[in-house]
């Protein structure tokens, strides 16, 4: 095996490079054309023997999950507390989405690929089928793909199957492993931060997740360390009729920084599957966390049959001075998306950012946005949201900017743009701006329109076909957000956009 130099994509300058983006548009145009007739490409299933538990949810199921994971007593108690609280809660109905009632007793809450009891010492011991699965997904799990420079934690159904690059990270003192391992190896860290941003009782879906969460990723960047590579988690739902409930916790200590990427896919099935995840980020003084998501769960077919119900609670806490949390998301999948990555800007001068592209085609429904809570002085937040609705899709931006009385000189800028393709779709904007401080400055702008005839005409006049012209306009529309994605993800996101809008452009 040759050894080309190790690429360190910790910074994402390459994406910001003008020449690069120029070629990317051309390249993506080709890709969109190529992909125009392709359907959901991650729709296959893997025939891995898996261990599932019976349908239904009660305290015994919670205990069973906990014991399967050999968890300490305090965690079981934490789960049970969440479960008891969940039982008293009702499913929220305020989101602008409609779906048949979910029977929570009909779900399976745990599914894990069967494997030997002893822990895996290297990737060779991982089930071949599994590795092939991740290969198909294009995830660089194998050592040879180390060169892509991304450390990956892959979560298959409910269990984390492999984490790469651990030695390199360990040298720097970075902990990057599955949540279950973290509970065993770093219980003090998990205990300190688990639920500190999203309490177990936060909302209906977060409480459900807290009770039955099976695995997820844990990441800890110690004081002053800049993570030498991007960290990535890949989530895959495989088993039928199971829900996936993973939990991610990222802690960046003083002066630490990390780029974190998350991807998700699922097989095509006729039933709807439930996915309720929780992500917690903690940034202490001067710490930076960039969290990027490309969400491509199975969206259901043209008529809205099947698809994932994606109910996710993501929240970051800028606890320290000058801390920074940035959310970038590309939401192209899921039958229903219910997701509001938020920032609690507690430390003085903290910065929160939210960049989002949400696409809903066919019968997809997305209700997504962000919450920026300004608590500390001089806190700043930026919200850029781009939504694209096509077919019968419905897309809502729902956001809240809350400036508390002590948040002197807080600053927010919000821009929400919606693009409509076709006359059966809908685009909705629900911003809430609540200001309790008169030294703050809050701006909100939103627009909704279709692709301008003038722009298309301009392209066509120069010999660019309608389809290419449309994808160019769409790419331009999303560029502001894609610029914040690491390179690999930006390319993937552009491709996904083409697939998601297939049948609606041109």
């Amino acid at each position, binding site marked *: 095996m040759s050894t080309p130099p190790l690429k360190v994509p910790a910074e994402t300058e390459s994406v910001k490079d003008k020449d690069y983006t120029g070629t990317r548009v051309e390249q993506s145009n080709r890709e969109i054309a190529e992909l125009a007739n392709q359907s959901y490409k991650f729709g296959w299933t893997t025939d891995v023997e898996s261990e599932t538990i019976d349908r239904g949810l009660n305290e015994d199921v919670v205990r069973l999950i906990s014991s399967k994971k050999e968890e300490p007593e305090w965690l079981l108690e934490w789960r049970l507390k969440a479960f008891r609280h969940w039982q008293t809660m009702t499913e929220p109905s305020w989101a602008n989405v409609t779906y048949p009632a979910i029977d929570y007793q009909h779900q399976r809450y745990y599914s894990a690929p069967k494997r030997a009891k002893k822990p895996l010492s290297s990737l060779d011991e991982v089930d071949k089928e599994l590795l092939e699965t991740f290969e198909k997904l294009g995830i660089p799990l194998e050592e040879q793909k180390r060169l892509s420079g991304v450390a990956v934690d892959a979560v298959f159904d409910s269990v984390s199957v492999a984490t790469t690059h651990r030695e390199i990270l360990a040298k720097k003192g970075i902990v990057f492993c599955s949540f279950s391992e973290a509970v065993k190896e770093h219980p003090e860290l998990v205990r300190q931060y688990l639920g500190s941003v999203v309490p177990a009782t936060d909302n209906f879906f977060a409480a459900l997740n807290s009770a039955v969460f099976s695995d997820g990723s844990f990441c800890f960047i110690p004081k002053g360390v800049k993570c030498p590579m991007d960290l990535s988690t890949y989530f895959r739902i495989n088993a039928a009729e199971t829900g996936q409930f993973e939990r991610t916790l990222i802690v960046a200590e003083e002066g630490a920084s990390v780029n974190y990427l998350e991807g998700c896919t699922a097989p095509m099935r006729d039933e709807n599957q439930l996915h309720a995840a929780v992500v917690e980020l903690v940034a202490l003084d001067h710490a930076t966390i960039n969290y990027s998501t490309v969400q491509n769960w199975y969206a259901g077919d043209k008529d809205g049959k099947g698809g994932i119900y994606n109910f996710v609670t993501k929240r970051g806490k800028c606890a320290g001075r000058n801390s920074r949390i940035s959310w970038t998301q590309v939401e192209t999948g899921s039958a229903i998306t219910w997701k509001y990555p938020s920032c609690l800007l507690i430390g003085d001068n903290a910065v929160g950012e939210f960049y989002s592209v949400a696409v809903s085609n066919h019968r997809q429904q997305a209700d997504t946005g962000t919450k920026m809570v300004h608590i500390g002085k001089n806190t700043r937040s930026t919200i850029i949201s781009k939504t694209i609705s096509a077919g019968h899709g419905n897309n809502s931006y729902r956001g809240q900017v809350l400036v508390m009385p002590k948040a002197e000189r807080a600053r927010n800028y919000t821009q929400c743009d919606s693009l409509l393709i076709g006359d059966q779709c809908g685009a*909705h904007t*629900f911003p809430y701006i609540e200001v309790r401080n008169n030294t703050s400055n809050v701006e909100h702008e939103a627009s909704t329109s279709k692709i301008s005839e003038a722009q298309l005409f301009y392209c066509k006049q120069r010999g660019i076909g309608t389809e290419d012209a449309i994808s160019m306009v769409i790419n331009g529309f999303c560029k502001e957000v894609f610029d914040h994605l690491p390179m690999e993800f930006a390319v993937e996101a552009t491709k996904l956009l083409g697939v998601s809008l297939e049948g609606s452009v041109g």
Partner: protein
Amino acid sequence: MVEVAERIDDKAHYLGDLGRVKSSSPEWINALRRDACARFESLDFPHKRMEEWRFTNVAPIVRTRFRSTLEPAAHGLTAADLVGLAYGVPEWSELVFVDGFYSPDLSRVQPGVRAGSLSDALAGDAETLRPYLNRYLNGSGSAFTALNTAFMLDGAYVSVAKERAVEAPIHLLYITTGLNAETASHPRNLIVLERHASATVIESYASLAVDVTYFTNAATEIAVGEGARLEYIKMLNEGTNGYHLATTRVHQDRDSSFRSFAIVQGGRIARNELGVVLDGEGASASLNGLYMTGGEQLVDNATSIEHAKPHCTSWIGYKGVLDDKSHAVFSGKIMVQRNAQKTDSNQLNQNMVLSDKATIDTKPLLEIFADDVKCTHGATVGRPPKELVFYFQTRGMSEAMALGMLTYGFADEVVNQIEVEPVRARLEKFVYTKYSPIPG
């Protein structure tokens, strides 16, 4: 369960008064009242868990046992009592309502203008009102709106026949005397402009009592016919302990135009709900507003525009200046229905916060189901830009003076668009004295 019992009890005083409302002659009016009464009983009073009332706490209104005025009382007011409230322009029609009831002695209607009391109109030719009355409010609105319909005792009825232009403004002035504390009035208005008619209607609310607690629960329905044009100015200057809740529904036909100004000056709690339906191609609506709050005021402007047909344009532009411990709420909803292509709709809400205890909640919403549309909205909260203040300072003005001038300029941008000269002049003076540091 205790809570439920309390809620029912909260309605008892209203239901008692409703029981004493005399039935009217055409039976359909009684039927309207009965339906509304049933609706009132079935609905909860607005509370903070209702999305539309999320920021507006009306508990002080619900808690107070207001007695509703059921018939005109002997008020003994003369024209001299109305100086500064009425405009007294001889060419105008000026209708005065005292504690919710029409007062012919204080009013003046120009010949040829069809404007007067709703109860008189109902007693006379109720059938001409039938196609319009409660058509646009039916089954919508809060418990308070239902309560208004359940009473429906009096208010203004303005009707402009087809192809008629009423040049001089029609001023509807609602006075609360405050002779009895804790009373409620439920004025009900109907404004109908037939095909190609045009008019200017001013609806203003004021109080003669400074500190008395009272409640005005108003509802207005406006029908703007094909090609008709209405300029509608609502001024709210209730007393310091006056509560005002109002629901206005506007229905626009093809090629009609509606332009409104909502100016809020006084009132302890004031909520203006203004909903417009553009129900014919080529209709246009422009909703403008200015709220100037202080003390512990709570002012809520809830606006909505529904584009039901293609080729309509709309604009919502509201500005707010907040001082002291006041709380302002703005919500603007633009709804574009599936077939309403070529919609052009813009919305802007700007707020200037002068004190560090004032709070603002703004909620501009877009709900769009058609693709060939152009819709924008924007909202800002802040203080005058430092550069502007500095510009004034370089010319020798103090910071306070600069801020005052800028605040005045900010508020006046709304006022100076009002075309009715006496109204504009009076408001400009008010805004100038309130904010400008230089004595006028």
